[in-house]
């Protein structure tokens, strides 16, 4: 049984005649890095939103650990799956960078004496130390993206989804992110990422799924490359 499973899933946005996704049959296990690729508008973001129950399938079911996603609350899903949105602005609601990083794991009941250490670790890794007290919406685009990734990673989810995580990142930060994701995957977190960035996909992905007009047209299957 795969960690996340799509059983003949089709999806159309409300009030839209056409299907954004059609007859998706896919399993995602909790190890390895999977890249989801495809042209603009092919349905990648829609697919990942179905994976976390933000969108609900029109037909078919999406199962998490064998149970239909419909049976979980969004909070329960959120404790298992971390999601980094394509547009980082949608994700922020705290008044400082440090609060934003700690919000998720503090809420999940992290031991108080480790909070500061964890904040510092992520500020350092993503080179956001100078912005510790800054209002997140006042950051540059690349800084926001790093913060969005940091605050999701800080919750240490067992499965991680990132929608176009490299847009807005400079070459140097792309490298740092690639290294970190490989490390996290090696430590046993499943990762799915949507990306147009061929070099990034080549470097990271053990499995590549390609969408075209809402259908899976290529799936290289599971395999291991790192760790």
């Amino acid at each position, binding site marked *: 049984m795969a960690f996340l499973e799509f059983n003949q899933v089709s999806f159309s*946005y409300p009030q839209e005649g056409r299907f954004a996704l059609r007859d998706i049959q896919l399993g995602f296990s909790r190890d390895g890095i999977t890249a989801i690729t*495809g*042209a*603009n*508008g092919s349905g*990648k*973001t829609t697919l990942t939103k179905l994976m976390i129950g933000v969108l609900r399938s029109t037909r078919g079911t999406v199962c998490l650990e064998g149970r239909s996603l419909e049976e979980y609350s969004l909070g329960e899903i959120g404790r298992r799956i971390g999601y980094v949105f*394509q*547009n980082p*602005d949608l994700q922020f609601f705290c008044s400082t960078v440090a609060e934003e990083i700690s919000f998720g794991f503090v809420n999940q009941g992290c031991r108080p004496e480790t909070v500061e250490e964890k904040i510092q670790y992520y500020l350092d890794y993503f080179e956001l130390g100078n912005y510790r007290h800054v209002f997140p919406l*006042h*950051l*540059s*685009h*690349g*800084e926001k993206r*790093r913060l969005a990734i940091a605050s999701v990673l800080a919750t240490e989810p067992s499965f991680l989804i990132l929608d*176009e995580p490299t*847009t*807005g*990142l*400079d*070459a*140097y*930060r*792309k*490298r740092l992110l*690639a290294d970190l994701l490989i490390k996290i995957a090696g430590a046993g977190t499943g990762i799915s990422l949507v990306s*147009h*960035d*061929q*070099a*990034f996909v080549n*470097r990271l992905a053990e499995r590549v799924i390609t969408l075209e007009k809402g259908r899976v047209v290529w799936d290289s299957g599971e395999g291991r490359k790192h760790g």
Partner: protein
Amino acid sequence: MIAGVDEGWNMSKKAVVIRGLSYQYQPGGPFALKNISFQAARGEIVMVTGLSGCGKSTLCFCIGGVIDYNRNGVMTGEILLNGKNAGNIRKAAMALEVGVVFQNPDTQLFSPTVEDEIAFGPENLCLPPGRIQERVEQVINLLDIGALREANPCRLSGGEKHLVALAAVLAIDPPVLVLDEVMSQLDQSGKNRVQSVLQRLCKAGKTIIAVEHDLAAVAFSHRLMVMEEGILVRCGNTETLLADRDFMRARKLIGLEHNY
């Protein structure tokens, strides 16, 4: 001297002249731009690159005249657009001098359909309806976004939003275009299409200033500007700069597709 026109400014050549431009988002705060000077000619594509936070978008906001709308920042120095001092250009007339596509296109899309979004600019120029429709069709064809015509811009995918925002700006037909990472979310065919559109526009005399991180996406430009911590550290022929591997490596600008 004509009011607002820079002495020594060559009508036929310089579309953008920046002199000693500095910017702070808060009075007394850190400088996001430090004493930047450069010029861009008509028909020239200048790409801007540099690590995140180095001031690229801030520079775009300044050139686009949109920086002092909602901020209490401090700008010093001089910006001339098409020979006119940007400080003296009325806000409403600014769109005729320069068009900006923002890094986050959500900030500039608000119409119910893509077609309305593109028509909005020409409508505000009070063009006759026939001319408006003509421009809308032109840019839709140019960017090959006919399939999105009826769609709601807010519901498009990230790359599609950038194409629509670009289309809306092109429909106004300003001589200077400022594009902040418009290619980063496009798929390969979208990148190729935008690149060929930009090349056509500059042959027609437009001046294009564009920010990109991906060195493959900057290669077709005439000149490359490299920024670091608010400073313009180098500006020169793109090919020459890209060939200077030591410089690019030292600036941490070489991507995953190349080894160090």
